[in-house]
């Protein structure tokens, strides 16, 4: 496909890894960037339309499915959709009870469920052949169109930062500002002369969490997407030989990464709740 359009492989890959970005051009007008250079010039005040469209759209798919199931939910014999949703909810609850325990918290359940299903749906888009939707979008005059929102670090970091805020909130709420502050300086070396060192360590540790949390998901999906793109560079008759095994393997990855993102969220929130001794 790359050669048929007169593009180099590098251009093809570049095209597939570029988001549809809306922002302000250097000349002051607003619009959709037509090249990576223009996107770079837009800086921070720009928005990736494709990421937003797909993530919000899939978020509504998630909500639609689960609200439909919850609306018609019955304690009697459940239907197929209700079964599916209940299996998911039960899976999330099991994981929470194993890691978080049985502390009363109305937020962690819905939070984990949202993360699991939403991230899974966004990852799932990775299994759609890499050229289908971007090519259709190109025919419609849209320059770039990435369909896997989780291959955009903005999406994954947006979520991990959200979790980070929650961790801070619970640290303050459960431990209180004083104990939380004390915890920052007295670990891991409980001696007053090393408090400054402890503080640096704890801050780095704390900031590393949302970063690694978001980038882990991004990295896995980005790499997977990249391999699909590389496979798509092969002649069309040979692609299936590699893309099929990779897609099958990727089914595991997309579920696993959604699960890992959820589990890490639960673990971080559990740490924020732990007032105990250590």
């Amino acid at each position, binding site marked *: 496909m790359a050669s048929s359009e007169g593009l180099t492989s590098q251009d093809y890959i570049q095209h597939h890894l570029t988001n549809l970005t809306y*922002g302000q051009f250097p000349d002051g007008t607003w619009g959709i960037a037509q090249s990576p250079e223009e*996107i770079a010039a837009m800086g921070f005040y720009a928005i990736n339309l494709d990421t937003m469209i797909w993530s*919000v759209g899939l978020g509504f798919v998630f909500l639609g499915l*689960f609200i439909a199931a919850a609306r018609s939910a019955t304690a009697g014999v459940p239907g197929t959709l*209700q079964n599916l949703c209940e299996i998911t*909810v039960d899976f999330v609850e099991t994981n929470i009870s194993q890691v978080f325990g049985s502390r009363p918290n109305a937020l962690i359940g819905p*939070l984990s469920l949202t993360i699991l299903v939403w991230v899974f749906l966004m990852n799932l888009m990775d299994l759609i052949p890499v050229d289908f939707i971007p090519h259709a979008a190109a025919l419609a005059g849209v320059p770039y169109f990435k369909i896997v929102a989780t291959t955009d670090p903005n999406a994954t970091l*947006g979520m991990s930062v959200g979790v980070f805020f929650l961790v801070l909130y619970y640290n303050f709420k459960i431990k209180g500002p004083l104990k939380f502050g004390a915890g920052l300086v007295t670990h891991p070396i409980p001696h007053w002369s090393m408090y400054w060192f402890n503080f640096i360590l704890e801050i780095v540790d704390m900031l590393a969490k949302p970063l690694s949390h978001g980038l882990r998901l991004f990295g896995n999906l980005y790499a997977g997407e990249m391999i699909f793109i590389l496979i798509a560079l092969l002649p069309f008759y040979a692609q299936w030989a590699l893309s099929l095994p990779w897609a099958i393997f990727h089914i595991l990855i997309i579920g696993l990464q959604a699960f890992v993102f959820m589990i890490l969220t639960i673990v971080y929130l559990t740490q924020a709740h732990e007032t105990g001794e250590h």
Partner: protein
Amino acid sequence: MNINLTMLGQLIAFVMFVMFCMRYVWPPLTEVMRNRQKTISEGLENAAKAEQQLQQANESASNELEAAKREAGELIAQARSRANQIIDEAKEQAKEEAQRIIDGAQDDIDQEISRAREALRERVGELAIEGAEKILATSVDRSAHEAMLSKLSQAL
């Protein structure tokens, strides 16, 4: 791969989805699941109870049956012994009746005998005289032998 406002947009979308999930998805689904768990556990409990009741009912039914059988056996035995008793009584009665009839007959016979004897006694003198007359071919004086004849009839 640039970090831009998308991150903020994603964060806002994330918060909203979590809030929607918290409001409309999680509570009803978990509640339904709890209710079903409760229903199922109650059902199982009831089933166990029903099984126990069934067992008790079976036990009591077999007990009743046993008792009824025993009672029936007793009744039969009683009836049998009663029948035997009745038969024995009847036999006894029949024997007594027979004895009474026999006794009556014997009395009649005895009376008949004594009456015949009486009659014979009254007529023995005549007969003896008649016999003696025949033997002796002579007339015997009645009055002369009266005393001897009455002695004879006394002996008879």
